[in-house]
């Protein structure tokens, strides 16, 4: 069944993300990506994942693949409180704009980024950010790691059941850790 946007009115247009139902589906894109960036929004704070939350997950994913993290909406505070100092802070709208510049080196100076993995930004705001990337930053492969379907990404979970989503998230960490 074709995935549909989580918020029912958010119909975008002819292009739509592919349903991400198994971690392995990302294998090829992860292999091709030279400089990924992990974007984590404020809704990730306090969102349960395993024994921790989605901030812990971001740290795990970052460490698994040496992927720099940029936090939006003040989520940076949660990273700092967990003792993780490698994350940077930017506004979601600033990222949507900066990512359109193919020469932008990124908040850590490790770019230009050719892939973003993103979650934790309020659904509709992430929707608009990804729309900017899809239309004007075509050099970037966007992967939405939130539970709900984001049609502007290349890959997105199709409004997945919570338990299954967490399992696949963990598999993605393993995939990234295993040298992609």
């Amino acid at each position: 069944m074709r995935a549909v946007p989580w918020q029912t009115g958010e119909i975008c247009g002819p292009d739509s993300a592919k349903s991400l139902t198994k971690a392995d589906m990302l294998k090829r894109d992860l292999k091709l990506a030279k400089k990924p960036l992990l974007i984590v929004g404020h809704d990730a704070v306090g969102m349960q994942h395993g024994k921790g939350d989605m901030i812990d997950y971001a740290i795990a994913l970052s460490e698994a693949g040496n992927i720099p993290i940029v936090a939006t909406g003040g989520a940076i505070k949660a990273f700092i409180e967990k003792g993780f100092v490698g994350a940077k802070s930017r506004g979601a709208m600033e990222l949507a704009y900066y990512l359109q510049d193919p020469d932008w080196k990124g908040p850590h100076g490790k770019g230009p980024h050719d892939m973003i993995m993103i979650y934790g930004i309020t659904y509709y705001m992430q929707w608009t950010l990804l729309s900017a990337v899809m239309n004007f930053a075509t050099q970037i492969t966007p992967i939405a790691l939130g539970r709900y379907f984001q049609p502007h990404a290349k890959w997105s979970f199709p409004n997945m059941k919570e338990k299954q989503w967490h399992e696949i998230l963990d598999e993605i960490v393993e995939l990234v850790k295993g040298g992609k």
Partner: protein
Amino acid sequence: MKKKAYIKADDAETSLGHFKGLEVRIGEIIDDEWDEPMGPTPKPGPTTLRSWDHKLLTRYQPSYMPYCQVCCLCTMGKCDLSRDKRGACGLDMKGQQARIVLAAANIGNAAHLAHARHLVDHLIEEFGPREQLKVGPGTEIHAPVSRLVTGMRPRTLEDASIILDYCETQLAHTLSAIHTGQEGSWLDFESKVFHVGMIDQVSMEIADLVQISTLGFPQADPEAPLVQSGIGMMDTNKAIILTIGHNIVPAASITDYITEKRLHEEVEVGGMCCTAWDITRRDPKAKVVGPISWQLRFIRAGSADLIVVDEQCVRTDVVQEAQKVGAPVISTSDKAVMGLPDRSDDSVDSIVEDLVSGKIPGAYIPDHHKVGEVATKVALAIKPIRRKKKYFPSKKQIQKMAAECKKCMECVRACPNDQPIQEAVLAAQVGNFEPLRDLYQNCIGCARCESACPNEYDLHSWMVVAAQEDCKKETYMVRTGRGAIQDIEIRRVGQPIVFGEIPGVIAHVGCANYPGGGKDVHDMAEEFAKRRFIIVTSGCAAISAGHVLDENGQTIYERRDGAFDAGCVLNVGSCVSNPHIAGAAIKIAAIFAKRNLRGNYAEIADYIHNRVGAVGISWGAFSQKAASIAAGFWRLGVPVIVGPHGSKYRRMLLGRADQDRDWMVYDARTGDRVQIAPAPEHLFYAAETVAEANVMTAKLCIRPNDTGKGRSIKLSHYIDIHETSYGFFPDDVWRYIRRDTDIPITLKDKILAQMKENKWKEKQIPDPTLLKEQVYGGGV
């Protein structure tokens, strides 16, 4: 300024000769008693200020986030524009997005302008064209926006009408640019967005100016009355008339009738949205029920015996909703007739009879003289019939219905704020109504959850039932709209604002599409008021700011002064009062810097952009009117922050702090090109959270002209809010340091270390301008 003159003589003997069939037409007679010289751009057309717009749009480039990938505006489409394809007309995605932004700004301006036109025509009919316009004491520079844009100072209703003629022409031009095969460049679409935003400011200024002058509103009064607000403030022992919208005229006819017939003990009038502010400006006995998104909850509660709608932001299903609670509706505006029968020519008694008996669900009565009498008589007659009935389901009934929930999650998927509605319904199954009660606080009252529910549950009503005790406690005192800022207040604060010693002027304006409840607006306003910023409010944001009580049971308006001064919180009034905020910034240029305003837009906008640390915040912006209001501030170079829903306006105007070349100004003293800090960094920005909005607000108050002391004060606030919200010392402080004097003394060590790390070099403090012609000697 006089209106058009027309002389006709069949046979005239004059000193110049003998004329037969003489006809003379004069388009306009310019105000020859005004000694201020006319500036370079009186009554600018759509491209007159293009060069100024391009300066802003070069620094703050549009970042488009297409909300829809297709264009379906003509029959050559639909056209797929995704990934920068072009449509059949040749337009690309950026052009299309800019076109839609322009469409929104045009719609917004049309609403304000038509509102202004209605007011002016109505008031000319009531008072005559020579009725004087008066903003209040201490406002020698009245109508600063109109002066700046048109080069005119409107002194009578007739003058106001002439200015609206100009606005209407401009709107026709910018609207026509959207047609297929007209404008093709995103940059020029955006310039027209700015143009119509500027026109919008003029339109609104005229609307508020004429109503302040003639309808007994507070006139530039820092001590405008405190009025009652909140659902709990409505006295249900009386017949209640609910007025919704923005246009005071029909609502005024109701309060006038009640006053004339001395019926205050039997009937009361409550307003929602901007009509609420304007009826309380006219009659402080009227009440502000709540912001626009409270419509459904109050109608459904059944407390209103009659609903009178005027224009803008009215729920378009108001008749159907009112019918559910047996309340008739009177529509009064030709823009929002709502399908009701036109009863203009019928007698009051026959209309009252038909409405009270339920023969008709409502009536369209554009004759405002009749509305007051009909509304009052209907409300009084229908109250005893209606009040015997209960309109909400009981908790027991809700519990029973909730048991049948299909658990499909459609309610949640339909909710703009992704609220856990299904979870709350499931809790209600077992008699736990607390989760439904929690939803009430954050609900924007759109009722999309109900439309989506396959069981057709009235979910919004369930939330209100669960929160009935909270509704009763909604009792607040809010300061009604004061109108303009006095010149003397500007004299007092102009210098500290321009030097940066009052760290900023923050305006909370706009709608109530909040991501997490209206309390956020109060909290943001309080955060900066306590830091001695000047806080200005208007519209629904002004209502929400006043709907929070402190530990002493006081609202922000009770505990803070209403003057335009540091640490004060002043409500200017309704949507159309927003130009008083822009006007304050404009008057700073006139009064403190002695700049001429008359037809001198670019110079004054350049002054404001570089010197006046003002930021607009519309945390719940949803409408096209909010878009046009924002556009008016953008052209003045004033940054605007919106809440996360504002990202759906589909384009931001963002600067690149990391690109030094974008942050150059002329030093007006020498003509040199000088590097400045990236300030203000952005012109239009959607923040994800309150924390982010607060950090960005403090940062966007920084201006190139700040003195060392001013910059140091502004940076102290920025750093403090950043550390509190984000948990670390901001890493870009060094960019804002020009000389040692800019460094906040208590943070010197940290900042010096950061400066060293970034190889900081001392910078010149220029007399900043983006306009070469502002360089002394004309920049030659």
